[in-house]
């Protein structure tokens, strides 16, 4: 097997990975980026509404970075590490201006400066945007910049495993085009491989969001932090679950039930439709469950009063998605929407330097849990996190690289053998049926409303799926874009992370942010104001805790 040695290797070519690569390459270190897709196909491209930023001199006159941190902390239901939130807020303006100087075509005010708008959970408007395809614009800007640097891109290479001893040693990957294996060793490894939406039946995520980074980390003994916190976005388009951006409500869109009522008045009497996503999604689920939804189980997102020109200019993607995928003209009728899985607040346990408990292993973006989102992420903060913490992590890796490091000399063959057993087997079960069952049970039992019974069911379902996966086999024996093989490897990761999520959710006996237990409907700060730290060891999930870092804000009742 070919072996390549770098100073740093990054798994994932979305915004977080590219930002880190950019930082490390600029410092003169050798860096490789491995991604199972060409960089611009990464899921960052699907982020729509915008990126929150306090820009001094170009923000609301009442606003300041402390309000921004406060919004994040309250939005995250106090499970936010407050030092992480403060760092995020304080770097927000600078990062947006940096992306602007690299070419991102942000929408403008008439004087040519970057424009802003309100997003859910914001006391003052801070969201900066490029139409409603902000993620796409930023990803392209960053990839295009990175393509001018000395970075080795391994596009369409699939990472199988992370090798480590006392320290992270390298990634084993396969070239998807030819199944040629490679062992990429490095002093520092960054996992920036994004989220896991495909473990849910209804998700706004890309097909590629299969939780690979979480899976390889868990198998290498690295824990996930707060994995029970999964965000459900209020406005997935019915029935295809395509994301209708929060921008639609930020620009004045109103959710209505089958009686044409603006039902959010009841649930969030101050913020209405712009309450945080967990609250809106629960409210919508209640409306639908109590019979005030439309047949099929959806509600209406009403934009009609905004006017055609405004909708087409500011919400073109929402307009287009409704038209293309649901046959609805949003300028004339309501868009059919229902909540769908959207984001994973949990992730690889890292501190504000991006470092995981395993020396040499870092993580950034949705793959990581720096704890800026706590129990619920605010809209416009995921893009911000990928960039700010992608860069912070890159900077810290540069500091890390300045010291001497030995890379453990490990043999990658076992990882390869483990993977190949699916192809070598001649009978067994295909990935498809196991995957579909997994997505079903996660949606039904680890969803918006949870309880002991459902979560126990999920755990036992997942255990039996893991059993079935022991006889997983791949019919395709070719070595040329054998995507069935990669789907099987993805499934292995999905089963690992789903297991950890379900066990952690069963364990947390309170309701906080996106984790809502009908059997424990209140937040319980006395027992549960702490981070879950979950390990997968052998066949068991082991749970530990870490305190939440508090700086200036005391927990208070969370109403909107």
């Amino acid at each position, binding site marked *: 097997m070919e072996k390549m040695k770098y100073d740093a290797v990054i798994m994932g070519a979305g915004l977080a990975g590219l930002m880190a690569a950019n930082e490390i390459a600029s410092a003169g270190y050798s860096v490789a980026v491995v991604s199972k897709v060409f960089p611009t196909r990464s899921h960052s491209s699907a982020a729509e509404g915008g990126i929150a930023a306090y820009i001094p001199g170009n923000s609301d006159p009442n606003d300041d970075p402390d309000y921004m941190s406060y919004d994040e902390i309250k939005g995250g239901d106090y499970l936010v590490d407050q030092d992480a939130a403060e760092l995020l807020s304080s770097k927000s303006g600078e990062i947006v201006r940096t992306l602007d100087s690299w070419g991102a075509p942000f929408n403008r005010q008439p004087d040519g400066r970057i424009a802003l708008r*309100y997003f859910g959970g914001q006391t003052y408007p801070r969201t900066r945007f490029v139409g409603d395809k902000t993620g796409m614009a930023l990803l392209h800007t960053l990839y295009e910049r990175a393509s001018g640097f000395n970075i080795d891109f391994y596009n369409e290479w699939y990472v199988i495993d992370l090798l480590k001893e006392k320290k992270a040693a390298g990634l084993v990957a396969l070239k998807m085009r030819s199944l040629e294996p490679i062992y990429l060793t490095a002093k520092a490894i960054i996992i920036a491989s994004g989220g896991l939406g495909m473990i849910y039946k209804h998700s706004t995520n890309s097909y590629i969001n299969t939780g690979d980074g979480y899976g390889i980390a868990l198998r290498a003994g690295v824990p996930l932090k707060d994995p029970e916190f999964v965000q459900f976005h209020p406005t997935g388009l019915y029935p295809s679950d395509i994301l209708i951006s929060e921008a639609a409500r930020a620009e004045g869109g109103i959710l209505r039930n089958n009686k044409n009522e603006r039902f959010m008045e009841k649930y969030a009497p101050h913020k209405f439709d712009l309450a945080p996503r967990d609250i809106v999604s629960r409210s919508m689920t209640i409306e639908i469950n109590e019979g005030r939804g439309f047949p099929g189980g959806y509600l209406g997102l009403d934009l009609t009063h905004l006017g055609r020109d405004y909708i087409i200019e500011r919400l073109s993607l929402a307009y287009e998605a409704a038209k293309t995928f649901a046959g609805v003209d949003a300028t004339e009728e309501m868009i059919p929407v229902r909540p769908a899985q959207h984001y994973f607040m949990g992730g690889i346990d890292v501190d504000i330097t991006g470092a995981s408990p395993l020396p040499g292993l870092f993580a950034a973006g949705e793959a990581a849990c720096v704890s800026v989102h706590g129990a619920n992420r605010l809209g416009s903060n995921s893009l911000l996190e990928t960039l700010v913490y992608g860069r912070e992590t890159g900077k810290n890796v540069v500091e890390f690289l300045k010291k001497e490091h030995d890379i453990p000399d490990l043999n990658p063959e076992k990882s390869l053998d483990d993977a190949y057993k699916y192809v070598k087997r001649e009978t067994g079960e295909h990935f498809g049926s196991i995957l579909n069952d997994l997505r079903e049970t996660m949606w039904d039992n680890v969803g918006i409303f949870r309880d002991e019974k459902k979560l126990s069911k999920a755990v036992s379902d997942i255990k039996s799926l893991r059993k079935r996966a022991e006889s997983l086999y791949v019919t395709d024996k070719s070595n040329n874009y054998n995507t069935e093989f990669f789907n099987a490897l993805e499934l292995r990761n999905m089963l690992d992370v789903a297991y950890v999520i379900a066990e952690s959710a069963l364990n947390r006996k309170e309701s906080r942010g996106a984790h809502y237990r009908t059997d424990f409907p209140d937040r319980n700060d006395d027992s549960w104001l702490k981070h879950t730290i979950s390990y997968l060891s052998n066949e068991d999930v082991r749970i530990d805790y870490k305190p939440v870092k508090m700086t200036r804000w005391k927990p208070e009742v969370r109403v909107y």
Partner: protein
Amino acid sequence: MKIDEAELGEEKPVSERPGGKPFAREIDYRVGDLFWGKIHIRNSGKMYMLVTSKIPFNWKPLVKDLKLKGKIVDSAGGFLWVQEDEKYINDDVKFLKDYLEKMKNSKKE
């Protein structure tokens, strides 16, 4: 340029890039502690007024009450952008002054 109710700053040319040809000029203005901002005048003659104020929490829902002669082009939080004309900018500033004064007084009560 003269606006009855406002204190005006100096006129400055602005360009897109450092050392680039100016595409517009700008004049800062202030109406007491009620509101402030700048007048942005393009080389083409097009004129925009930025209204910044701490009093309204968010201009957006108020836009329909604003009887301005200029055209409101954007609003978010304490920011309001109005496309103006030399002919009526005076009237609009006067209107905003009265409007915000009223709002300020009603908040006190």
